[in-house]
């Protein structure tokens, strides 16, 4: 207990809704001052985790800590220190956007008029429209401005950019970068990979209510295989390559070979290939997209690398 608590600490969190198991032992740690990406396929339990963190739902097992406190028991006091953008933004039909922004800010403890005005300007949002007459993207902007206008030390954002156009997406990214520069913490649930790549210091990937990967993007990249294609001078016998540690999905046709290689064994594999004389070689590090598709798709199913976790 010596060091100050992380803003968010979750261990082995469980939650079921009737027969549906929404969270099945989820772990998540968000450190002070980082932008943490929270990723996972639809229905994997991101919004459920966030709702438990906010004390809206009660976890069935495991531990969830917000600023070191119990979010269920001490919700109101903890909430003064955070701002939230819900996954599904619905505005009161007869309140204007400006009124909603002020209301939520005041309920949290106050509004900073300068930040508010600047954000309205940057997001090109008309605050005089009534809730029901906003378009989807503009509804989203109202929720965003309400959260970003606060001085809260933690921002919990559940798919905050869904419905935003690319220009507004860029404004959002600038805002988050400023917030990171101020040393504030952000939990960002998102399906938009470029956004995650641009903003996040670390990410946690979950699937079916469990954390399957967690770490910095570079660390995660290392967990994924690089694809390697080569044309060799002498055709290798399949057994020669298949036996090498780190080689997967080997395809060989004469002197042409293609495979994927664990990042950690790239060197030794290249040495084996070199011993057959390399005519040409292409090697591609995994794109972020491959990394995610790989995690989303395979992590839960194949026992093989389901729990490749990097210690935080």
């Amino acid at each position, binding site marked *: 207990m010596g060091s100050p608590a992380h803003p968010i600490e979750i261990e082995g969190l469980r939650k079921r809704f009737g027969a549906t198991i929404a969270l099945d032992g989820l772990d998540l740690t968000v450190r002070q001052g980082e932008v943490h990406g929270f990723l996972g396929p639809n229905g994997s339990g991101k919004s459920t985790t966030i709702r438990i963190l906010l004390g809206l739902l009660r976890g069935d097992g495991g531990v969830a800590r917000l600023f070191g406190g119990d979010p269920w028991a001490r919700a109101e006091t903890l909430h003064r220190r955070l701002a939230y953008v819900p996954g599904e933004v619905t505005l009161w039909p007869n309140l204007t956007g400006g009124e909603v922004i002020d209301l939520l800010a005041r309920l949290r403890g106050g509004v900073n008029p300068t930040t508010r005005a600047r954000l309205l300007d940057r997001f090109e949002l008309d605050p005089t*429209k009534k809730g029901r007459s906003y378009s989807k993207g503009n509804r989203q902007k109202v929720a965003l401005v309400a959260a970003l206008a606060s001085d809260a030390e933690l921002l919990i954002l559940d798919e905050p950019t869904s419905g935003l156009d690319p220009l507004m997406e860029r404004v959002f990214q600038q805002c988050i970068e400023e917030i990171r520069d101020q040393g504030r913490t952000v939990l960002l649930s998102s399906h938009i990979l470029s956004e995650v790549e641009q903003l996040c210091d670390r990410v946690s990937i979950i699937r079916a209510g469990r954390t399957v990967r967690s770490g910095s993007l570079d660390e995660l990249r290392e967990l994924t295989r690089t694809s390697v294609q080569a044309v060799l001078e002498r055709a290798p016998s399949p057994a020669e390559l298949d036996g090498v540690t780190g080689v997967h999905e080997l395809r060989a046709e004469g002197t042409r070979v293609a495979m994927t290689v664990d990042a950690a064994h790239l060197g030794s594999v290249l040495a084996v290939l070199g011993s057959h004389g390399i005519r040409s070689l292409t090697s591609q590090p995994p794109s972020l997209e491959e990394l995610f598709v790989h995690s989303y798709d395979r992590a839960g199913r194949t026992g093989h690398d389901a729990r490749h976790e990097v210690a935080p």
Partner: protein
Amino acid sequence: MSGSWTGTGSLLRLALRRDRILLPSIVGGLALLVIASAQATIALYPDTDPQRLARDVAGVAGNPAFLAMYGPLADPPTLDAFAVFKTVVMGGVFLAIAVVAIVRRHTRTEEEEGRFELLGAGVVGRRAPLLAACLMAMGMVAVTCLICAAGLAGLGMDPTGTLAFALDWAALGLVMTAVTAVAAQLTATARGCTTIALGVLGVSFGLRAAGDAVEGAGALSWLSPLGWMLKVQPYGQNRFWVLAIPVTVAVVLFAVAARLLERRDLGAGLVAERPGPAAAGRWLGSALGLAWRLQRGSLLVWTVALLLVGVLIGSLAGSVASMLDDPATQDLLRRMSGSEVPDLTSLFLAAEFTFISLAVAGYGIAATLRLRGEERDLHTEPVLATATSRWIFLGSHLLIALLGSTWLLLVLGAVVGTMRGLATGDLAGQLPTLIGAALAPLPAVWVCVGLTTLIFGLVPRWTSGAWILLVLFLVVGEFGSLLGLPAWLQEVSPFAHLPSLPGGSVTALPLIALAAAATVAVSTGSGGFRRRDVG
């Protein structure tokens, strides 16, 4: 042109499927009410005792309280007419409310929640949803009328009168379907649609109550759909030609609704959205401020309604004594009231105050159900993610429900008290007495608010059950003794334990018990809400 109707059939099937429990419950409940109360009345008057019927009929016919509530008896006052005396209008009101609920549910509510956009992109014509909703409501009305007619005929009642009764109800259902169809085009919200449609129903009731009970105001009944029903006089003169009025009005209203539908956009009302303030006012800064902002409109509408009702009752009360010179009538009324009541005006006012308090309980329930509405619309989530605690969120709406219902009864008492005070020259005496009398049912109203909170806290999915409870209280109060319901069932209703004020004596115990029950229900419900998941 024909394209705008396509898809009506599939929408109708979908709607029937969604309401497969609701519809039979409404139809069965209404039919049971009509048939059982007719049977009970007929059983009261065996053929051997014609004088008794004549005497009771005379007593009912002259009593302004009855006239205001149920309208005049048909002429000639047959036993069959007596058997449906209470149900023609009161049952009709229930039928009308059901029609409003069904039409709204399948038009405005769907549109508000964006479900039509999914359908609208398919093969559903522009007019199809409205048509399907209206057909559904009319189908419900038709089946109800058929079952009622079959039941009443089965009791051996006059066939022509039975036909008149059934057509009477059908015509009311038709008019209210058309009214709701128009209301659904005028506003952009389901709530607004209900307010307009039920407002029309309330004004109809008020017009015919005034027309039937106030001397010289008889013409007002002809302006009211509920008044038209009584003018038909089922089991009396059976004036079928009167039905031409509601049918014509309905046709005109349907045409208006169709025109309005052409002129507006999906999801919008007719009145274009105006921009509002760019920043929140001083009041909109707390959970209570938000609750007040969301609820003030409906409290205003209710306040106006109770002002009007107060004026109506205040002016009726004056004519009570003068219209009841006949000693036999006075004697009957005293016997029927059971307890010792000093004067008939008090008896009348006490009955009206209790009845209106049931409507105010309806306000209390609706105001409390805002909690669930906010939760279901996901508005609660961002609010509870701030420093607002669950207690404060719950308390803010609850406070408005409790204080709002108090305020409404206060308005009623003040208006009636002022009018009586001016009429009798005893303002200083009448005003406090009648304000006190109007506030007397408050504990029962609060019990209704408490029960709603209890349901919200423990079984949020069943919040509409609060309305079922209110209907139960209304039915056992209105029809309980007539139907010979067991005493315990009648006493389930908190309204059965109220003193008869003004005039009657007050015992503290029942009122304290009611207040205690309300407190327990509210705190149990709040505790439940504190412990359950939100969303």
